[in-house]
């Protein structure tokens, strides 16, 4: 039995997003596949990969992940299935000794984890997670600390996802029982000791709970209470499925332990991961993404500068010029400062603006929670390397939210306004003016509303437009999945604090996807079009026009194409360009890693639904 019953045939990198030492590496091995069945194993491994990349938050993080398929042949097919557990009595000779009926439980399907660790270490030394698919259609699986096992039964992929939650991301079980509801007798009240895992807690206090930054101010804490601690709480979910709060019953106990959402894949197979689990997964994988968001700025029609954040904590740039010999490949990309006092956050938004053709300002979030900036000017002695990046405020009363979008606008060539979200769920701003006494440090930064009815969604994009030099409109996604806005006007009584933020539609048929990019364009001073990604993978839009009967609430948001051949990557950035007041081009990232686009033209027969979206 064991490794004498087969051999390692070889390894194929079936998802290649870069070198193993820079990415998160998933290894998929098979057991109970004879050499003639290795084609079937390849299909089964790909099926799991497809499931993984269709699962939030992995869809948006796929560029951080490599997948290696390790082909291992066994002398026999299937897995041991002892009659003691009601099985067939099959006892095939397989490389990893896959067997049902571990510990007397038929569905407990295990393999020799030491062998799995040894093979992974030889084939993919930089592995992060090992999955073993067992060639049997009997439902079963198991979660070892480093190796998860599952069979080919329908939905057995779900076992792999749940066990990855444990093994790769350190997530706890959120279910509120141990052996089963109605079976347990010693699982009434969770001991008064805080679990170390991020997704269960004994603390349901709004002010101190460990995922409080994801809880809306209006959400009750605890959100549900179990009236009878001797049983599993039978009450249905009293709030929205996406509501983050503190739901009593978690971590194997009926009472005194809380889970973040009513449901989660760490509680019930087949459910989406809750927001707290998604955040943990994101935090683990974000540093493995190739680059952060990309920002482009066109200083003139023949010149474009591109900015992005690398995992070295620096902001990098490259540029394109239509002059011969100055294209993308004629020179190398470069970091835009000699040193970065605080590393740029991997998942930061980045905003750039050219106040005039000879000057650029760039903004990003540092790992220290501050918004940083540096600038370039064509004048001698004012290049990128002639000065250091600096935080754009003396004090940050609240740190910038992890993964925040950043927006900036130059209402005139001597003035800049910058916007970002704080960990308090508010949209914050600071501004700079060339005039004496109006620099970054001459005043404090501030939230742009007296109150936010709903906190900004974690990691939301944010966008701003100045329809005229004395007016700004700001847009972001709220934690409720709606797109929110507020505005500022120089006119007396029309400042930030004279009105409240508002959702820009009465109904959103589909919520905005978490971490969506968002973009706005004013094709003319009296018209705005806003674009974002929905949880359905479509790009959505709505618009506002000063004309009577054409306001935000006079029509509904709509997807900008009849069909999307490939869903948008959740968390995609979105760019819109209005080449002229009657034409818009929209760009976003598809789940296939390509840039997709569609367009609208005022000409009859050239609307959103008159042609399809296409990859460029």
């Amino acid at each position, binding site marked *: 039995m064991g490794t004498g019953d087969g051999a390692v045939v070889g390894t194929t990198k079936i998802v290649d997003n*870069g070198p*193993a*030492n*820079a*990415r*998160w590496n998933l290894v998929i091995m098979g057991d109970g596949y004879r050499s003639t069945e290795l084609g079937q194993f390849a299909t089964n491994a790909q099926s799991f990969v497809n499931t993984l990349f269709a699962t939030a938050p992995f869809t948006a993080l796929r560029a951080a992940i490599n997948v290696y398929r390790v082909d291992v042949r066994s002398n026999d097919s299937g897995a041991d299935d002892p009659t003691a557990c009601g099985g067939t009595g099959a006892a095939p000779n397989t490389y990893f000794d896959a067997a049902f009926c571990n*510990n007397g*439980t038929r*569905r407990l399907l295990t393999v020799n*984890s030491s062998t799995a*660790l040894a093979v992974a*270490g030889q084939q993919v*030394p*930089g592995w*992060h997670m090992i999955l073993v698919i067992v060639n049997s259609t009997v*439902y079963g*699986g*198991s*979660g*070892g*600390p*480093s190796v998860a096992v599952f069979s080919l039964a329908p939905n057995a992929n*779900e*076992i792999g996802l*749940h066990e990855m939650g444990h093994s790769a991301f*350190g*997530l706890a*079980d959120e*279910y509120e*029982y*141990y*052996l*089963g509801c109605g079976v347990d007798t*010693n*699982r009434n009240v969770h*001991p008064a*000791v*805080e*679990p*170390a895992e991020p997704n269960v807690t004994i603390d349901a206090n709004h002010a101190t709970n460990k995922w409080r930054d994801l809880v809306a101010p209006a959400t009750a804490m605890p959100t549900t209470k179990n009236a009878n601690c001797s049983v599993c709480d039978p009450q249905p979910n009293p709030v929205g499925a996406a509501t983050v709060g503190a739901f009593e019953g978690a971590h*194997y106990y009926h009472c005194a332990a809380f889970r973040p959402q009513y449901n989660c894949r760490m509680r*019930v*197979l*087949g459910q989406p991961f809750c927001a707290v689990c998604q955040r943990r997964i994101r935090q*683990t994988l974000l*540093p*493995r993404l*190739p*680059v952060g968001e*990309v920002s482009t700025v066109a200083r003139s029609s023949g010149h474009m500068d*591109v900015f992005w954040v*690398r*995992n*070295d904590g620096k902001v*990098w740039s*490259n540029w394109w010029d239509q002059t011969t010999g100055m294209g*993308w*490949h004629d020179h*190398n*990309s470069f970091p835009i400062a000699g040193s970065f006092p605080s590393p740029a956050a991997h998942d930061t938004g980045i905003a750039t603006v050219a106040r005039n053709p000879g000057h650029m300002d760039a903004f990003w979030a540092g790992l220290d929670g501050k918004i940083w900036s540096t600038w370039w000017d064509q004048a001698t002695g004012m290049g990128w390397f002639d000065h250091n990046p600096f935080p754009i405020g003396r004090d940050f009363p609240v740190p910038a939210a992890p993964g925040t979008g950043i927006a900036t606008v130059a209402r005139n060539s001597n003035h800049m306004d910058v916007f970002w979200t704080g960990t308090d769920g508010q949209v914050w701003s600071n501004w700079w003016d060339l005039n004496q006494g109006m620099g970054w440090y001459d005043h404090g930064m501030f939230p742009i509303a007296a109150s936010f009815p709903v906190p900004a969604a974690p990691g939301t994009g944010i966008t701003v437009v100045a329809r005229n030099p004395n007016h700004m409109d700001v847009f972001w996604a709220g934690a409720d999945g709606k797109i929110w806005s507020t505005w500022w006007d120089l006119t007396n009584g029309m400042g930030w604090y004279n009105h409240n933020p508002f959702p820009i539609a009465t109904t959103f048929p589909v919520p905005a996807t978490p971490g969506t990019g968002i973009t706005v364009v004013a094709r003319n001073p009296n018209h705005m079009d806003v674009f974002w990604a929905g949880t359905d993978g479509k790009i959505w839009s709505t618009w506002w026009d000063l004309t009577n009967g054409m306001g935000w609430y006079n029509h509904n948001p709509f997807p900008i194409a009849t069909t999307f051949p490939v869903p948008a990557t959740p968390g995609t950035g979105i760019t819109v360009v209005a080449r002229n007041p009657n034409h818009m081009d929209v760009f976003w990232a598809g789940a296939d890693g390509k840039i997709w686009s569609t367009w609208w033209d005022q000409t009859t027969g050239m609307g959103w639904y008159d042609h399809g979206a296409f990859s460029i």
Partner: protein
Amino acid sequence: MTSEQHTGSGPAGAAAVRLIFEYEGPDIRLVSRQRVDAAPPPTDDLSETTGPAGSDATDERPGVKGFWVELRDARQQPLYRRVMHPPVRYDAEVFSDDPDRSLARVPVDEPKGAFAVLVPELADADHVALVSSPLAPGPTVAPAAEVARFALREDEDEADAANDADETEEPDEGGH
């Protein structure tokens, strides 16, 4: 866009150490320790450590239960910490067709298996510690405390006081 963007990799020469443990009941044995070119998961918050004021005892987070791996310097200060789903456990997860109760636990009499951790190779690191709530059957109620400690490099084993752990090595592992 530019090709440079797609080759953006982490810090050059990312170095890490993979430790593989085997366990039987509460006994955890180090069986392999290998330097690998890989990127470990990011650290969890180190500020949650609250040792007695002025002391160097930082191997516990009072009132917290569970399991984590910690990298510390010679003064016992944590340099890296990663919370794990407790790997050594007296139960196993089982799966059912009931769509509302698809997951449950069954007790296991004799925990036995292997697990691996991947930690960064930090210049100041002195040792790696496993911190765990008591490894015992039934509901665990006690906060976590150090259960094992290992040197990061083989040549430091003699000088290192490995605690409860019965540390052995495969002679040809590591290659350095």
